């Protein structure tokens, strides 16, 4: 591993890290925007959950490169050709996360809110969603890490679409493991950083969790993570 090469190309690494972060995070953001209403609908009308979940699963199975290629004809060689499939992939994790989060709100809490005079929207925004945050964060973590990692496949389409995958393909083409390793390490670091940020955000948004008995929280979060994994 030639660290000299790495230090010479730090600006290039930085540039592609930015691209990777942008493509991955936008996909998750859009995925969340779509999953929230979808999940709400599925939580309310339970019969919707099975078909929507099945659809999300089927979408996730589509090999990413094939997806990109087929879209190429419709969306051209643009960022959106990468972002759309990545967004759809996140649905298989985020929709269940939203549904799980909402349905795991204890019934008595929901009823207490109604009894206190909360209308459905206010109850949603101030009670159900905040209580769902641990589960939502668990899902967002998985979706974010996977998306950031998956962006690299876009490099098979062209240099500007693979984020850090640029280093994989070039390093492989000219047989230069240093370059490939650089890309790999950068992706892992970026993904883990994003993960840590989400953990921190989750902790910030749920101050009441820290005051609860630890085993209950550990179990609840573990269950959520198991479902999201």
């Amino acid at each position: 591993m030639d660290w000299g090469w790495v230090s010479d190309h730090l600006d290039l690494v930085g540039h592609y890290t930015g691209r990777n972060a942008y493509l991955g995070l936008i996909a998750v953001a859009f995925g969340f925007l779509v999953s929230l209403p979808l999940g709400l609908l599925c939580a309310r009308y339970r019969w919707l959950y099975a078909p929507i979940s099945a659809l999300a699963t089927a979408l996730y199975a589509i090999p990413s490169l094939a997806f990109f290629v087929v879209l190429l004809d419709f969306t051209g060689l643009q960022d959106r050709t990468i972002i759309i499939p990545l967004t759809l992939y996140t649905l298989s994790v985020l929709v269940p996360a939203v549904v799980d989060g909402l349905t795991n709100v204890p019934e008595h809490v929901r009823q207490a809110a109604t009894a206190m005079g909360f209308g459905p929207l206010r109850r949603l925004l101030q009670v159900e969603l905040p209580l769902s945050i641990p589960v939502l964060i668990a899902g967002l973590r998985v979706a974010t890490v996977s998306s950031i990692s998956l962006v690299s496949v876009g490099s098979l389409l062209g240099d500007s679409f693979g984020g850090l995958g640029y280093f994989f393909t070039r390093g492989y083409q000219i047989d230069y493991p240093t370059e490939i390793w650089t890309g790999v390490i950068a992706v892992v670091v970026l993904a883990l950083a994003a993960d840590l940020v989400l953990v921190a955000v989750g902790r910030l948004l749920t101050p009441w969790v820290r005051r609860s008995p630890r085993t209950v929280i550990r179990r609840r979060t573990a269950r959520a993570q198991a479902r999201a994994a």
Partner: protein
Amino acid sequence: MSIFTDFWGWFTTGANWHGSDGIPARLSEHVQYCLLALALASAVGIPIGLLTGHFRRGGLAVTALSTAARALPTLGILYVLASYQPLAVFPVILVLAALGLPSILVNTYTGVVQADPDAVDAARGMGMRPSQVLLRVELPSALPLIWLGIRLAAFQVVSTATIAAFVSLGGLGNYIRFGLATRDYPQVVGGAVLTVVLALLSLLVVSLAARLTVSKGIRARS
């Protein structure tokens, strides 16, 4: 849509069913890689999950390990390993196993942690040794979640095993790569559809295996 008629045309062309590039050949390569990868992921993930779950230690390590495994860019690792060992099969297996590991590991751990505490308590009270508690109570109780983990892992592994083609090791990804290089879209779609179907089938197969091995009492609860 024309994409699907294209696929049907490709799928029903006799020539595509023969030879080393034929559908059966590529399918069997694909399945072999997936089975080996899942076996490896289970061989690593289940024991670690069982042990950390039983001793209630290392929960954080389990999450960290699975996050790290998920962060690994499959294509990148594959390229790196393939550049050291071109045309060797084990890089593909390794990479796919790393992909499936998180689901299996986390779910096994959670399954053990969530085993009915009363049953575990009773087992201990009956004088069972820790290993017996693990194997005779916690493990069977965790089986539904373990199978869930394997199911999720199988699904991911089958749909990602298409990358084997990018280091020229065959599998259904060959149709995607080949089709891409020659702008033969029916072929690309063919590879994609076959992969999706295989992935969904794997869900079915694992669910069936779960149904056969999980005892009725536990199934009723989960």
